[in-house]
């Protein structure tokens, strides 16, 4: 287990290093934005992984509520934590990129606001897990996860329809649509590297959470056995 982790961690490290090389050196400099566009190779993979983590969290929460399966709950905690980490990366790299390109750090457009709200909801999810007492935490936080998932769609539409118009962000090459083919390898390598990194984090955190659950159960059983005497 420990060796497997070390081996995988080394693999992820190599992948991330190669991704960094691809993004910083191999990829061509963007015509209008210059070098700052390279942040894109970190920004987009982080965003994709954050959304992926939160989707898995939602599915795991629903599974937990239906089957009361401790593994589903462990997966839900794990993906929420890893998702918050990647979402933080998105929210930090976004303004860093926006400032030189759009001239502003932040704009309340639909996508930015939904990402921020997603982050807020999942931070509140983690707080709830921390504050909820013992055995109730999984049920309560699963319920919150479902609320959060439903809410994000509403936030996106609310921002598109009702917020006063801010300068529309010009997203060069976002979502792969306008991306120059010469930039594709850097994006794909980083996407692969980040996915491997996220998978590693989820896996090791999942093992920790399972160990914690088993320990808790053992304690509970020991207390029960001791109480019988």
């Amino acid at each position, binding site marked *: 287990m420990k060796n497997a982790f070390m081996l995988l961690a080394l693999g992820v490290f190599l992948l991330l290093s190669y991704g960094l090389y691809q993004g910083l050196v191999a990829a061509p400099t963007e015509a209008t934005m210059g070098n700052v566009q390279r942040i894109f190779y970190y920004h987009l993979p982080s965003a994709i992984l954050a959304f992926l983590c939160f989707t898995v969290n939602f599915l795991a929460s629903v599974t937990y509520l239906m089957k009361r399966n401790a593994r589903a709950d462990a997966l839900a905690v794990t993906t929420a934590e890893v998702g918050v980490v990647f979402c933080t990366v998105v929210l930090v790299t976004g303004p860093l990129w926006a400032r030189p390109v759009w001239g502003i750090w932040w704009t309340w457009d639909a996508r930015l606001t939904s990402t921020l709200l997603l982050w*807020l909801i999942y931070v*509140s999810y983690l707080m*709830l897990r921390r504050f909820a*007492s013992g055995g109730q935490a999984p049920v309560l936080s699963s*319920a919150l996860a479902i609320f*959060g998932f439903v809410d994000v769609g509403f936030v996106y539409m609310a921002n598109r329809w009702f917020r006063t118009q801010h300068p529309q962000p010009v997203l060069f090459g976002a979502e792969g649509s306008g991306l120059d083919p010469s930039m594709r390898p850097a994006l794909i390598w980083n996407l692969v590297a980040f996915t491997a990194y996220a998978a590693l984090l989820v896996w090791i955190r999942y093992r920790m959470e399972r160990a914690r659950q088993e320990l808790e159960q053992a304690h509970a059983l020991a207390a029960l056995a001791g109480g019988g005497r």
Partner: protein
Amino acid sequence: MSLLSVTRSSLAKDLRLEWRSKDALNAMLFFALLVVVIFSFSFEPSAEESRRIAGGLVWVAFLFAAVVALNQTWARELRNQVLDAYRVSPAPADALFLSKVLGNFLFVAVLELLMTPLFSVFFDLRALGATWQLLPVALFGTWALVVNGTFFAAVSLRTRSREIMLPLLLFPISVPALIAMVRATTLILTGEDSAFLPLVFLAVYDIVFTTVCLLLFETVLHAE
């Protein structure tokens, strides 16, 4: 026991309790009054400006004040293990939830009725659009705050430091509703455009979240 009769008797009990103690209402009213006064000191808008910002101020004040009442909803049932008795009784959980939502809705509605005139005096407000449209905005908006608020008050009841937990859970979830409420109110006050779209949005939000609350409430009530 039917859903309707349990809802009605539980609601009647809550209203009677509130009528005799007036705990929630007094606390909410005074809190909202303080928020209004502090807002008036913080901003000194002209009549034109206040039309633009009042929608936001009013709803933020109501949201904060509602949390005061929501925090008391379930805490009241902890005394004498009333909530535990509810859990083992065959009464439908939905009835308990609905009665709490209706009770809170009435409390917050009373608060809004009393505070709105005060707001318009302090901020020199006069709607340029159709004033009657503020009524559906208030109805749908209050329902949106109260239905999720009652649900998350039941969730935060099970946590340590529950009083602070409720706003932490409720505010992120309420953001879309708040955006629509503020937008609708501002449109009516400034008379720039029809408030139809945000109203429809609020109605859909209410329907969806009421459904989600009803689906999940029993699970949360029985969480062990």
